[in-house]
C-alpha cells in the first residue's frame, strides 16, 4: 500500500468513526446512570435534520451543530418524561423514540432533500499536521473530530476521577442506596438522558453538515443502533468505545474504498455495503459469548425504572 493511500484511508476511517464515538459516549453516560435509551437512531436523525436546516438557513455550521444538539436533547427530554416521570418501559419507549424520530426527521426534512451545503473546511493543527503518514490524517480534520477526542478524555476523567462521576455510577448501580444517602436519583438520570440526547444530536449534525453535506431520508442508516451495540462491545468503558468506533469506521471505509477503487472484483457492491452490519453482529457475538463479562460490567440497574418513594 502506498503512503498516500494509507493516509487517505486513515483520514476516512477517523471521519467515519467520529459520529459513532460521540453518540456511543453519550449513550455510555446514559447507561452508566442506569437508563437504557434505544432511541439513538431517532435522536441522531432529528439532530441531523435540525442541524442541516439551520446551517442551510443561517450559513453557519456551528449554529447548525447547536441546533442538532438542541433537537437531540428535546427528543431525549421526551424519553425522560416517559420513562423517568411516567415510569414507562424503557425498551418500548426507546423503540418508540427511534421510530418516531426517524419518521419526524423524514417529515421535517422533505423540503431539504434536494439542497446541498457548502463543505466545511477542516482545521489544521500547526506543526503536528506536518508529521509524515498520520499528520494529514489526524491533525487536518473536522473540528468535531477533535471534539470527539476531547469528549473522550473528559469522560474518562469525569467517570473515574470526579465525585460527580462517582455519584452518576452509584445511581446506575444502586439507585435506592444513592437515594438513601440523599442524591436526587431522578434528576441525575434526567441529566444523563439529556447528555445522551445532546451527543446523539451532535453525532447526527456531524453526518448531515460535515460528513455528507446533505440531507436524505435514511442518512443515519443504522449508526444509532451501531452506537448502541458499541457500548455493549466496549463493556461500558470509554477507551473500548474509541477502539470499537474506529474499527467500525475502518470496516465502512474499506468497503467504500474497494467499491471506489475500480478493482474488477466479482462481488456486488450491495453485499459489500452490508459488511459493517455483519461486523456489528460478529463483534456483538464475540463479546457477548462470555456472559460474565457482560454481567459484571453492565450497570446493575440498567433498564429498570426507579421510583424514590415506592
Amino acid at each position: 500500500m502506498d503512503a498516500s493511500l494509507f493516509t487517505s484511508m486513515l483520514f476516512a476511517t477517523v471521519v467515519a468513526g467520529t459520529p459513532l464515538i460521540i453518540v456511543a459516549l453519550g449513550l455510555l453516560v446514559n447507561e452508566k446512570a442506569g437508563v437504557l435509551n434505544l432511541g439513538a437512531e431517532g435522536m441522531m436523525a432529528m439532530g441531523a435534520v435540525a442541524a442541516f436546516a439551520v446551517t442551510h438557513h443561517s450559513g453557519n455550521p456551528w449554529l447548525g451543530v447547536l441546533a442538532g444538539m438542541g433537537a437531540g436533547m428535546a427528543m431525549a427530554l421526551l424519553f425522560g418524561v416517559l420513562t423517568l416521570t411516567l415510569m414507562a418501559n424503557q425498551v418500548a419507549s426507546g423503540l418508540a423514540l427511534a421510530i418516531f424520530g426517524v419518521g419526524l426527521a423524514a417529515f421535517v426534512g422533505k423540503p431539504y432533500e434536494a439542497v446541498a451545503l457548502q463543505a466545511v473546511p477542516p482545521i489544521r493543527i500547526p506543526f503536528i499536521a506536518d508529521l509524515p503518514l498520520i499528520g494529514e490524517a489526524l491533525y487536518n480534520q473536522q473540528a468535531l473530530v477533535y471534539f470527539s477526542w476531547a469528549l473522550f478524555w473528559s469522560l474518562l476523567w469525569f467517570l473515574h476521577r470526579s465525585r460527580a462521576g462517582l455519584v452518576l455510577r452509584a445511581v446506575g448501580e444502586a439507585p435506592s442506596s444513592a437515594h438513601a444517602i440523599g442524591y436526587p436519583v431522578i434528576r441525575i438520570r434526567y441529566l444523563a438522558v439529556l447528555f445522551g440526547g445532546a451527543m446523539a444530536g451532535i453525532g447526527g449534525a456531524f453526518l448531515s453538515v460535515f460528513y455528507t453535506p446533505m440531507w436524505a431520508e435514511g442518512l443515519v442508516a443504522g449508526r444509532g443502533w451501531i452506537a448502541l451495540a458499541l457500548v455493549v462491545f466496549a463493556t461500558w468503558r470509554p477507551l473500548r468505545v474509541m477502539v470499537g468506533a474506529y474499527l467500525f469506521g475502518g470496516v465502512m471505509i474499506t468497503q467504500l474504498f474497494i467499491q471506489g477503487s475500480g478493482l474488477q472484483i466479482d462481488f456486488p457492491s450491495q453485499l459489500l455495503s452490508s459488511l459493517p452490519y455483519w461486523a456489528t453482529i460478529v463483534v456483538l457475538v464475540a463479546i457477548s459469548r462470555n456472559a460474565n463479562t457482560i454481567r459484571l460490567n453492565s450497570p446493575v440497574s440498567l433498564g429498570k425504572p426507579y421510583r424514590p418513594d415506592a
Partner: protein
Amino acid sequence: MLELEARAEPSRLMSFLSPLLAVVLMLAGGMLVFAALGKDPVEGFRIFFLNPVKDLYGLSELLLKATPLMLCAIGLAIGFRANVWNIGAEGQFMLGAVAATGVALHFEGSESALLLPAMIVAGAAGGAAWASIPALLRTRFNANEILVSLMLVYVAQLLVSWLVFGPWKDPDGFNFPQTKMFGDAALMPVVLEDTRLHLGFPIALAVLVAGYAFMNRSYAGFRMRVAGEAPDAARYAGFSAHRMIWIGLLLGGAAAGLAGMGEVAGPMGQLTDKVGSGYGFAAIIVAFVGRLNAFGILLASLLMALLYIGGEQAQQYLNLPSAISMVFQGMLLFFLLGSDVFINYRLRLRRRAA
C-alpha cells in the same frame, strides 16, 4: 398539587381505557399539528381520518394495508410477551418476500395450483430463517436479539436491492430495480370484486385466531406469558428460556415472512427495492397499542392502516409529505406509553402543606 400515587393493584379498567385515551390524545395532537402547519384542522381531520374510509373501495384499501401489519404484529406480540425483543420484523418481512419471489421466478410460467401454496410456505420459511439468526446467536452466544435482528434489517434491504438490481432484474424492465411481474398462478386471488383486497386478508385473520389460541389456550403460550411476567417463577418452574426465544423469534419471523409474501404476491405483483415499506417497524407500534393480544392487534392494525392511508391523502390533498403518517404513529405510541402510567398509579390532588 398533582401527585402520582401507587395503586394497590393494577387497574384493569385503565388498561382498556389507556389505548382509547392515547387515540383521543393523538387525534387532538394531530389537529394541533395541522394547525401548526397552517392547515385548517377540521379540514385536515376530514381528509386524514375520514376521507380514506368513506366508501367500500376505501375500506378495502384499509383492510389491504392492515393485512401485513396484523401479521407482523401478532408474530411480534408472541415474542414480546416472553420478553423476546424481535425488532427485525422489517427484515424478516423482506426475506419472506424474497423467498416467495424466488419460487415464483423459478417456476415462471407455471399454472399449477400448487404454486401459490408453495410461495406461502417459502415466504413463512424465509422469514423464519432470517429470524433464526438472532435466535441462534442469542441462545448460543448470548448476543442481544434487539441489535442483531435490527442489523439484519439493513442487510436484508441491501440483499433485496442486490437481487433487483442484479440477478433478478427484469430484462425488459427499462432498468428499473424490479423483477418480472408474476404470472397469474403466482398472484393472490382477489377476495372482493373490483378491489385489490386479496386472500392475504383472510389468511391474516386466521393467523390472528391461531395466535390467540397459541397465546391463551396452549401450554407453550402459557409458559411464554409466565416467562414475560414473572421470569423468576418461570425459571423456578423449569421453563426453558432457550426454547421460548426460539419459539418467539421463529413464529415472529414466519408471520412477518408471510406478510412479505402477501405484498409481492398481492398488490405489488413483483419484487422491487421498495418492498420493505416500514410495516415491520409500524407493527411494533401495533403490537403495543393492541396490548399484545389478538383482538387488540386487529383494532390497532386497522387504526395504523388508517394513519398510513391518511398520510397518502394528506400528501395528495393537503400537500404535506406522506411521512406525516409516521409522526402520527409515533405520537400514538408515546401517548399510549404515557397514559399507561394510570394502570399502576392514580392521580391525586394534594394540597401543599401551608
